[in-house]
């Protein structure tokens, strides 16, 4: 389904971006929104890649990488979602892009789980590098820390590369076969599920930021945009400005109210 050159290129990009999640820089190039956009560009459909990236971003919004906790691999998940959606979007005649997008989103779940499992293996392997540094000191030599660190980063890249190669190499042809054979009812169901998955992402984000004290403000903004915005026929740019403005004011208000509380 994917030409070998494209598969290698996408896997290499996935491996490189994955380094940003823990090992290097951590400037958030590994987040699904960025990965989805980049994969969309590489596959010729930035818009669809962005949509899938944003859906995976919402689903993975919780689960911070605290201590030894390894959250689902959101880089591999977004790579799988964007690639599956873009490659499947043209397989069926008619307007079935959202159906392909829903299937892409479903592909993100096993990809994220596999990536997390692979990261646990990789971190266990990295234990050996730490012991190697001790062994060199015991032998009276100064360990070459730069080389040990480069080996660890190389392993992390290889992990990301292999996960992407496996998920895309196997997942895309399998899902393409399923998608091509689906009856129309199945396509309709996927189209419905696209919007339900969207809502699920928003619900996950709302759950992450749940705060009883903010519910009245949140409900007011939500209903205001949904009902009042529709009634006055506000344009999309005006809605964007209203939502970001309301969020900014609410955030600054709470920050100012709490800023004199000490750090305990």
């Amino acid at each position, binding site marked *: 389904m994917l030409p070998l050159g494209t598969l290698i290129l996408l896997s290499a990009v996935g491996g490189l971006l994955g380094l940003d999640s823990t090992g290097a820089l951590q400037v958030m190039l590994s987040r699904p929104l960025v990965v989805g956009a980049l994969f969309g560009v590489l596959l010729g459909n930035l818009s669809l890649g962005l949509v899938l990236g944003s859906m995976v971003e919402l689903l993975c919004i919780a689960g911070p990488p605290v201590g030894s906790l390894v959250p689902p691999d959101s880089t591999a998940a977004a790579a799988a979602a964007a690639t599956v959606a873009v490659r499947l979007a043209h397989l069926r005649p008619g307007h079935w892009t959202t159906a392909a997008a829903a299937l892409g989103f479903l592909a993100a779940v096993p990809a994220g789980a596999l990536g997390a499992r692979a990261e646990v293996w990789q971190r266990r392997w990295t234990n050996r590098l730490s012991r190697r540094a001790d062994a060199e*000191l015991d032998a009276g030599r100064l360990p070459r820390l730069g080389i040990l*660190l480069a080996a660890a980063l190389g392993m992390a890249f290889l992990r990301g590369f292999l996960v992407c190669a496996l998920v895309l190499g196997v997942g895309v042809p399998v899902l393409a076969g399923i998608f091509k054979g689906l009856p129309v009812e199945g396509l309709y169901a996927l*189209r419905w599920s696209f919007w339900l998955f969207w*809502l699920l992402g928003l619900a996950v984000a709302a*759950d992450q930021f749940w705060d009883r004290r903010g519910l009245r403000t949140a409900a007011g903004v939500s209903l205001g945009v949904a009902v009042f915005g529709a009634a006055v026929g506000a344009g999309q740019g005006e809605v964007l400005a209203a*939502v970001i403005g309301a969020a900014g004011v609410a955030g600054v208000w709470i920050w100012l109210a*709490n*800023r004199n509380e000490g750090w305990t």
Partner: protein
Amino acid sequence: MKSGASWRIEAALRATLLQGAWNFERMQNLGWAYCMEPALRALYPDPARRAAALRRHLELFNTHPYLAPYVLGAALRAESEAAAGRGGVEAVAAIKAGLSPALAAVGDSFFWANLRPAAGLLGVVWLWLAPGRLRLAAPLVFLGAYNLASLPLRLRGVRAGWLKGDGVAVHVARLGLPAKAEGLRRMALVLVAGLCGALARINQPAVGPSPVADNFLFLGAGLLMLLLLRLSVRPVVLLVLCTLASLVLALAIPPMNPH
């Protein structure tokens, strides 16, 4: 011999790879020792003393990667004083042990639990609500918002730690990160709510007798999912339920499906 400023710059640059060799046994130890290495090379020309110092820094270490430069600066200062005979090496270990858990807690709460999700939400809101081709800038909005807030803190860390020494904890406390985290939480909650309202208005499938009824159906479905999540139902279970519900909907009302 390199000057102190030179090690600090090198340490700050190397701190971007602090978690490069993260491992379950001693976590960030290799990355931490790699950050300290240029200073240790300059401070301890004698290989035996340098090996002893390196062994100290290869012990377990873990903190938030963005606030680690503050610990690094304080540890560099303590190490340079120990090398000059003005203090013991115990001070270095005490700084690491004292600062790293506290900064880890503050950093996890501010950066991972609030700033990153809030910036991500801003990007998502931008993608869905910005007009025309402006929406394609969503990843740049996300990266810009996140890094403008986090990079200055990361870049100042080593210098602040060096200047304040073991008093750097007070310096970090004065940054007021917990209050800012509260503000980010509220901002993110309002962003989610606004996006829900806007999507209900703009993009949802039409099933009800009127657009307003559709909006309430859409928001109601979202609230039901939120309720289930609050009841500790896992998102993966909801994903399966959504798929099944879609199948039922498609079989029940196919002619009303949207295009």
